[in-house]
C-alpha cells in the first residue's frame, strides 16, 4: 500500500467515525431538544406537531407557570427541592467523609466486619426498607416533614459515597498522616486539615451526585409528603400528570424543562468530575 492510499483510508475512517458519533449524538440529544422546542409551542400542538422547534415560539407556557399549580406557586416546589437538595449535600459531605476516614485511615477492632456490612448495604434493594422506615417515622410523628428525607444523609446511609471516598482516601500517601502524628496531631486534626482538603475531587463528585439524586428523587417525597405546599418539583410535575388535562400540557412541558435545568447546569459545569467519578467508582468495585 502506498502512503497516499493509507492516508486517504485513514481520513475516510475518521470521517465515518465522526458521522457515526454525530448520528448517535442526535438520537441521544433528541428528547432534550424536543423538550426545549415543545415548551415554546401552544399546548394543543405539542404532541401532534412533527416540527422539532416551533415555527412561532410563544412564551404562554412559561407565563402559565407563574399562575402555579392548584393554587401553589411553582416557586414553592423549587424552593422545597432546593432546601432538600442542599440539606442532603451538607449531610452527605459531613457524615460520609467521617465514616470514610475511619474505614480508610484508622485501624480499629472490627473494621473489616463493618466495612463488609457497609459494602453489602450498597447492594440492598431499597424496597425492603421503605415499609419499616415509614412505620418508624410514622410512630415518631414525622410524616409530612423533611426529616425522613434528610435523616439518612446525616447518618451516612448512602454507602455509595462512603465507598467513593474510602477509595480516594486509601490512595493518599500514608506518610502525610505519620508526619502529622509526630507533630502531635490527633485524628480530628489529620482528618480536617490534611485528608479533607486532599479529598476535594471526591467531595465535589459526591456533592454533585447527591444534589442531582435528591433533586430527581420521586419515591421519597411521594411516600412522606402529603401536603402540596411541601411538595418538591418531582411531585409538582406528578400533579400535572394526574390532572390529565390537555389545557395544562404546555405548563407541564415548560415545568419539565425548568425542573431539568439545575441538573443540566451542574452537568455542564462539572462534567469531568461526574464522568470520571462514575468511571472510577465503578471500576474499583
Amino acid at each position, binding site marked *: 500500500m502506498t502512503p497516499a492510499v493509507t492516508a486517504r483510508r485513514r481520513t475516510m475512517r475518521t470521517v465515518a467515525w465522526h458521522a457515526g*458519533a454525530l448520528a448517535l449524538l442526535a438520537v441521544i440529544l433528541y428528547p432534550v431538544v424536543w423538550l426545549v422546542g415543545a415548551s415554546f409551542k401552544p399546548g394543543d400542538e405539542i404532541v401532534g406537531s412533527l416540527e422539532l422547534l416551533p415555527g412561532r415560539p410563544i412564551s404562554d407556557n412559561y407565563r402559565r407557570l407563574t399562575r402555579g399549580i392548584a393554587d401553589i406557586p411553582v416557586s414553592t416546589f423549587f424552593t422545597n427541592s432546593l432546601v432538600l437538595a442542599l440539606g442532603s449535600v451538607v449531610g452527605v459531605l459531613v457524615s460520609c467523609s467521617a465514616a470514610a476516614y475511619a474505614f480508610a485511615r484508622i485501624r480499629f477492632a472490627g473494621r473489616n466486619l463493618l466495612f463488609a456490612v457497609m459494602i453489602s448495604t450498597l447492594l440492598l434493594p431499597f424496597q425492603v426498607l421503605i415499609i419499616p422506615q415509614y412505620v*418508624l417515622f410514622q410512630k415518631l410523628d414525622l410524616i409530612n416533614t423533611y426529616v425522613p428525607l434528610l435523616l439518612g444523609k446525616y447518618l451516612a446511609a448512602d454507602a455509595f459515597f462512603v465507598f467513593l471516598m474510602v477509595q480516594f482516601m486509601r490512595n493518599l500517601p500514608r506518610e502525610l498522616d505519620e508526619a502529622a502524628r509526630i507533630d502531635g496531631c490527633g485524628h480530628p486534626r489529620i482528618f480536617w486539615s490534611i485528608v479533607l482538603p486532599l479529598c476535594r475531587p471526591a467531595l465535589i463528585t459526591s456533592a454533585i451526585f447527591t444534589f442531582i439524586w435528591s433533586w430527581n428523587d420521586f419515591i421519597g417525597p411521594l411516600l412522606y409528603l402529603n401536603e402540596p405546599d411541601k411538595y418538591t418539583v418531582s411531585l409538582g410535575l406528578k400533579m400535572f400528570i394526574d390532572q390529565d388535562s390537555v389545557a395544562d400540557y404546555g405548563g407541564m412541558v415548560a415545568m419539565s424543562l425548568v425542573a431539568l435545568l439545575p441538573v443540566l447546569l451542574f452537568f455542564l459545569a462539572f462534567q469531568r468530575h461526574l464522568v470520571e467519578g462514575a468511571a472510577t467508582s*465503578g471500576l474499583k468495585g
Partner: protein
Amino acid sequence: MTRTQMTRPDVVERPRTPHRRTPEGPRAAGRRRETLAGYLFLTPWCVGVLLLTLGPMLVSLYLAFTDYNLFDTPRWIGLRNFRDMFADDRWWHSVRVTLEYVLVGTPLKLAAALGVALLLVRPRRGQGFYRSAFYAPSLIGASVSIGIVWRSVFQDDAVVDRAMRFVGWDAGGWVGDPDWSLPTLVTLTVWQFGAPMVIFLAGLKQVPRELYEAAEVDGAGVWRRFRSITLPMISPVLFFNLLLELIHSFQVFTSAVVLGGSGGGAGGPADSLLVYTWYLYEQGFRNLRMGYASAMAWMLMLGIGLLTAVLFRTQRGWVHYEEGTDAR
C-alpha cells in the same frame, strides 16, 4: 498499627497521653485509642445502619409474617402472606412485567454501552465531548421530566409513531398500547447506556495494546480480536456492569409510574407497566397491607439475591481475573 509501632514507638507514646500509665502498657493503650477514634468517626454511620438499615430489615422480616395496617397491632399470621402472594394473579403479573423489563432491557443497554465504548476508545478529537454527552442521559433519565418527554413523544400519532409508520411499522399507540408500553419503557432505559459505557471505557483502556498488535500480525480479524482479546480482558468489568444493572433495573419505579400513570394511578394500559415496586407501593401504602407488602419486599430481595448468587457461580466460567490487569 503494628508496623508503626515497630518503626516509630514515639508515635503512640505521646508523653501527654493519660493512657500511658495503664497496666497493659503503651501498645494496648494505643490500640484502644485507635479503636475509640475509629468508632467516634463511625458514630453517624453506625447509628444509621442500626436505625435505618439493620433494624428496619428485622422489622420488615417480622411484618412479612403479620397482618398489619399501620394503625392496629400487627397480627401474626404465619405464611399466609406468602400463600396469598402465590395465589395473587396481579402479583404474578407484576413479576412477569418486571422480569421482562430486566431481562430485555439490561442486555440491550449493556450491548449499546459496550458498542459505543468500542467506538469511543480510540483517542480522537472530540472523544471527551462525546463521552460526556452520551453519559448525560444517565443523570436525568430517571427524572419525572424525562418520563413526561417519553410519554409525549411515544403517544399515538406523535413523533415516534409517525416516524415508525413512515418506515412502514404501525405499532399503534405505543405508551397507550398494552403490547407496546413495556418496549417503550425499555427504550428509556437503553437511552441511559452512558453510565455502563463510561465504566466499559475505563476497562477498555486497560487492555494492553501489544495484544492487539500481536494478534494483527497473526492475521486475526476484527471479530476474532474482539472475541479472543477484548471480551476476556474486560470480562471483570462486564460482570460488574451486569450485576449493577440487573440489581438496578429490578428497582425501576419513577419511569414506569410516569409513563403508565393517569388520574393518580399507575400501571399503564391493562396493567402492562405494573412493575414490582409500584405494586408493592400500591399494596403497602394505598391498601395499607403493610404485612403483605413486606412479604413482597422480601420475595424481591430473595429473587435478587438468588440471581446474584447464580451470577457469581457462573463467574468462574467466563470472567477472567488476571494478575496485573486488575483495575486498581
